[in-house]
């Protein structure tokens, strides 16, 4: 499968277009992944129903059995549990960093280790999250996998 990237001036919105004769396994996998990363999730914010693109979510957090998604501009409450969200979006960059939080790897600016060997995650919007030692292995395996995927 080839990837053609074209710069076009004056486009109102960036778009992806797929050309195929038969849908093989590799292409289907890419479609699934793109579908998921372009997916929207529905929740409530200030008693209003809202839809948020998954790619905008910085992290999900579970507080008092409620699940919240944090974006740059708002906090949206969901019915899904963190486990469900991970099942749906685990392969588009979401990984668990503690019992109550799932982070979008693409929104991480950098990590910093502390004396208790917990990693402090600095997000691109300046927020800080703590990754517990128990979830470190899962996190590092995930970013290694993403690195390999990017290489391919």
């Amino acid at each position: 499968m080839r990837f053609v990237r074209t710069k076009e001036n004056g486009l109102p919105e960036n778009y992806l277009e797929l050309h195929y004769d038969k849908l093989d396994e590799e292409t289907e996998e890419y479609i699934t992944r793109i579908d998921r990363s372009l997916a929207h999730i529905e929740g409530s914010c200030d008693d209003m129903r809202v839809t948020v693109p998954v790619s905008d979510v910085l992290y999900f957090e579970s507080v008092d059995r409620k699940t919240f998604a944090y974006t740059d501009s708002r906090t949206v409450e969901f019915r899904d549990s963190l486990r469900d969200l991970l099942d749906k979006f685990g392969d588009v960059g979401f990984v668990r960093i503690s019992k109550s939080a799932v982070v979008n790897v693409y929104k991480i600016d950098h990590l910093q280790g502390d004396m208790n060997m917990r990693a402090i995650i600095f997000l691109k919007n300046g927020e800080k999250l703590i990754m517990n030692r128990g979830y470190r292995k899962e996190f590092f395996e995930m970013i290694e996998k993403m690195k390999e995927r990017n290489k391919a």
Partner: protein
Amino acid sequence: MKLINRRNFISIVCISFTLVVCGKLLTEKIMGFTDKHYTENIFTCLAFSVLITSVLAAHYYLQRFPLIPVLIGQYAVIVGAVVGLVKIVDAIAGTETNAMWQMILSVTIPYIFSAVLYYISFFKQVRKANSILSQL
């Protein structure tokens, strides 16, 4: 780090025991030292291997607690076990006057060394993760 469980516990003890004994024999050979308490020391090495493997196995289950108290707690348990062991051996067969101090040192030095290695590997892992994240 690989999880030490019931299935692989014995094999890990065996491997670490073999390595400790090989290290002991090599050091003795290099220094030209003859161990007068060979049998007792071999069993001490076995006891140490079981103890250290148990401590490492427990470490996985203590991950939700802050590391420094965990390290201090584990060290206290090890030193407690060593002191108890030396007291028992002393009561049964008698030990050298500075046996207690030597045994505590024998535990402390590898423990600190391992903790430092663990820290270094963690910070290396963080640095590697940062380099991957900058490429994503």
